[in-house]
Structures are given as structure tokens and as C-alpha cells.
């Protein structure tokens, strides 16, 4: 496998980075980087760390980084996660550096502890803390419950002062969305599976409306909705499929779509194969709509989606 850390890869311009990922030869991981500058979204770091966890440390070939921003990779715990040494020395910042370094979560109780401990690290207001906790909980629980990933979920997050935003990445190397969704549906492609997974009330655990006792099929829809209402990016990549919710212009009305393909988006269905799922979300804090207002719109959209599906099952009159 080969991955190149570019000078810039954030959710807005992440597509070339994913296209450049080479998944062949999974026993070896080669990491190269831009020589002058490396500025990347947490999703990039989670992806590299997730790959590295499946490779023996002696089979990870990491070139000597020259970029002046290379210290960031150490601070975010990349080399530690890969279990390889580096000669990059850093001055440790105070604990409250407003970032969450690469963290591996494999169990439900680890997640609960993590959510409790991450909020002080990011110095968030209560409303913002709720939103972030919500996103992390739903995404990591998806991994723990559906991904069958031996390494669990790998995540990290960073606060960006200039844009006043939190950017989060979560990656796993589990079975991927298509296999999970196709426990109950028949998605032909990874992209079709992503479309189903982002639709409210669709879960791989059952085709029954309302889901099972433990799963409703609403988690990803809620997260895409948070990003949509706040006009932020949301990215999901699994198998060959890739979906990106694009930023939209401010409007007075809070509108949500049950079908993710009706949102302003970009998509690809032939990316290099990612065994598992990667999700990235940006949350711009000064435009974070009040969560309870968002819930009103979610309730309406969700209800309409269920009614639409019920309507599709109505018997039709037979005209002869």
C-alpha cells in the first residue's frame, strides 16, 4: 500500500488524496509526503494510522519528512500510532492544545470514557460540546456495532482558530458499508450502499420500519443533517464509493433531504478500494445552529421519509 501526504488535503479538496491512495500489496505500507509543507485534515491521519495498524511496524516504510510542518504529525500521534520511531523532536504543548491526537477505540466503555474526557481538551461551549459528543458517539458506535473491525475505530480531531471550526476524522478497516447494508438490502455498488446508509430509517440489521431494538438506521442521517444545516462538509468513503456533502449557501429556511443525493454533493464510485469506512466532518462553531432547532427539521424529514416508504408499499389499483 502507498499513501502520499500532500501539502494540502482538507474535506473540500480531499478527492485527489483518496484517488492517489494505492491499496495494492497490503503487507507493506509506504508513506511519503510533500517536501515543503504538510497540512492535512484529521481524516488523512486516521486513514494512515488505520492502514498502519494492519501492517507489521517493520513493513512500514516511512520516508524522512522534510516539510517544516512535520512536527504536527508527531503531535497528533501518527508515529506512535504506527509504532515506528521518528527523529522529529517536538516541544510538548500544554495539555489544552485544542486537538485530540490519534486515538483507538475498541470497546463501548472506552468510547464513553473518551467522550467524557475529550470535551475539556477542546474548550467547547456546552452546546458545541453536545454536538461534537453526538457526532463522535454515533460514528464510533457505528464502527463498534457494524464494522467488525479488529482494530476498532481510529479517530482524531483538531480545532482551527482561523475558521473557528472543529474537524474530525474517523476510520476503520472493517467490512465496509456495502456488506453491512446488504445484510438486509441489495445494494449493487458501494455508492448505492452509501446512499442507503445515509437515508433515515435504513439499517443493515433489518428492513423493518423502526429498525431493531438496538438500531434505527438514523445515526449517519443525523450527522449529515448537522453538517448540512451548518453548511459544513461531510465525507464518507467505503469500498470504491465516496460521497461528499458540499457546502451550501446560507438560507433562511432549514431544509433537509432524506435522500443524500438530493443534497448538494459530489460522489465517485471508482476510487481505490478502501477496506472499511472513513468519515470526515467539519463543524464551524460560530455558525452552529441550535441543536434543538435542527431536531425539529430532522423530525419532519424523518417522518416524511417513513411515510414515503409506507406509500411505496401501498397496494395499487389494478386497471384492466
Amino acid at each position, binding site marked *: 500500500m502507498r499513501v502520499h501526504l500532500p501539502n494540502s488535503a482538507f474535506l473540500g479538496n480531499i478527492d485527489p488524496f483518496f484517488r492517489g491512495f494505492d491499496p495494492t500489496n497490503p503487507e507493506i505500507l509506504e508513506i511519503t509526503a510533500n517536501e515543503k509543507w504538510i497540512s492535512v485534515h484529521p481524516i488523512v491521519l486516521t486513514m494512515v494510522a488505520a492502514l498502519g495498524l494492519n501492517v507489521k511496524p517493520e513493513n512500514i516504510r516511512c520516508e524522512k519528512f522534510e516539510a517544516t510542518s512535520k512536527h504536527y504529525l508527531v503531535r497528533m500521534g501518527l508515529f506512535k500510532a504506527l509504532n515506528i520511531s521518528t527523529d522529529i523532536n517536538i516541544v510538548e504543548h500544554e495539555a489544552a492544545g485544542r486537538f485530540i491526537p490519534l486515538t483507538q477505540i475498541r470497546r*463501548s*466503555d472506552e*468510547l*464513553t470514557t473518551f*467522550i*467524557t474526557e475529550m470535551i475539556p481538551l477542546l474548550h467547547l461551549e*456546552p452546546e458545541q460540546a*453536545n454536538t461534537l*459528543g*453526538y457526532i463522535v*458517539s*454515533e460514528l464510533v*458506535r457505528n464502527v463498534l*456495532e457494524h464494522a467488525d473491525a479488529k482494530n476498532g475505530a481510529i479517530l482524531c480531531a483538531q480545532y482551527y482558530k482561523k475558521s473557528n471550526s472543529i474537524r474530525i476524522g474517523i476510520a476503520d478497516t472493517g467490512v465496509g458499508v456495502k456488506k453491512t447494508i446488504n445484510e438486509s438490502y441489495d445494494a449493487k455498488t458501494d455508492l448505492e450502499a452509501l446512499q442507503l446508509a445515509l437515508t*433515515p*430509517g435504513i439499517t443493515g440489521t433489518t428492513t*423493518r*420500519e*423502526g*429498525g*431493531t*431494538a*438496538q*438500531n*434505527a438506521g*438514523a*445515526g449517519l442521517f*443525523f450527522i449529515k443533517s448537522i453538517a448540512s444545516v451548518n453548511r459544513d462538509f461531510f465525507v464518507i468513503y467505503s469500498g470504491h464509493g465516496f460521497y461528499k456533502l458540499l457546502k451550501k449557501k446560507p438560507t433562511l429556511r432549514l431544509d433537509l433531504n432524506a435522500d443524500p443525493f438530493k443534497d448538494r454533493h459530489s460522489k465517485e464510485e471508482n476510487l481505490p478500494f478502501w477496506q472499511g469506512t472513513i468519515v470526515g466532518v467539519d463543524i464551524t462553531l460560530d455558525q452552529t445552529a441550535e*441543536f*434543538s432547532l435542527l*431536531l*425539529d427539521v*430532522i*423530525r419532519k424529514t*424523518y*417522518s416524511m421519509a*417513513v*411515510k414515503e*416508504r*409506507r406509500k411505496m*408499499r401501498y397496494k395499487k389499483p389494478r386497471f384492466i
Partner: protein
Amino acid sequence: MKTIMIFDKAGEFAENKDIARDLRTQEILPALERHEDITLDFGGVRAATQSFIHALISDILRKHGSEVLDNISFKSCNDTTKKIIGIVVDYMQEGVEADLDDEK
């Protein structure tokens, strides 16, 4: 009347679905089967995820129908938690009705 303090089990950020499942199977369902009314007290809970609320009550609505809401009270919920409970109750009623229609 049985009162269940959600904060005592799930903390101020109620997101652990395993805890929700245990509350449902070990406390709520047995109490309902004994024909006891139940109060789910969310005092001290700052936020709850939809997944947590779903794991807590969806199966109860499916097993007992929406009439069970006459036997359950939700106490001291903040505005956000009220709305999440509302979403779950809505889609469960719509979904369960659809299932019943299919069975007719």
C-alpha cells in the same frame, strides 16, 4: 410507580446503548409486565443521542404498542432530549403501524 434515574446509569451525556439496553430489558420491560407505571427521570442529563433513546424505548413501543405511552412518563427532560424522544416515538408509531397494516 417505578422511577428510573437515567443520570445514575448513563451520566450527563447519555449515549451508551449497552446501558440503554440493560435499562430496557432489566428494568423497564419487567416493570411494565408487572403493570407498573414508569417514570424515566432525565434530571442531570445534559444530552442524549437518538441511538440511546432508540435503544431505551423503541422495542417497548414495538412490543406494547403506542398505548404503552400512557404508562411511561418522561421527567425533567431538557428541550433537546424532549425532541429526540419525540422523533423516536414518532417513527416507531409510524413504523409499527406499517408493520401491523402489512400483517392484516
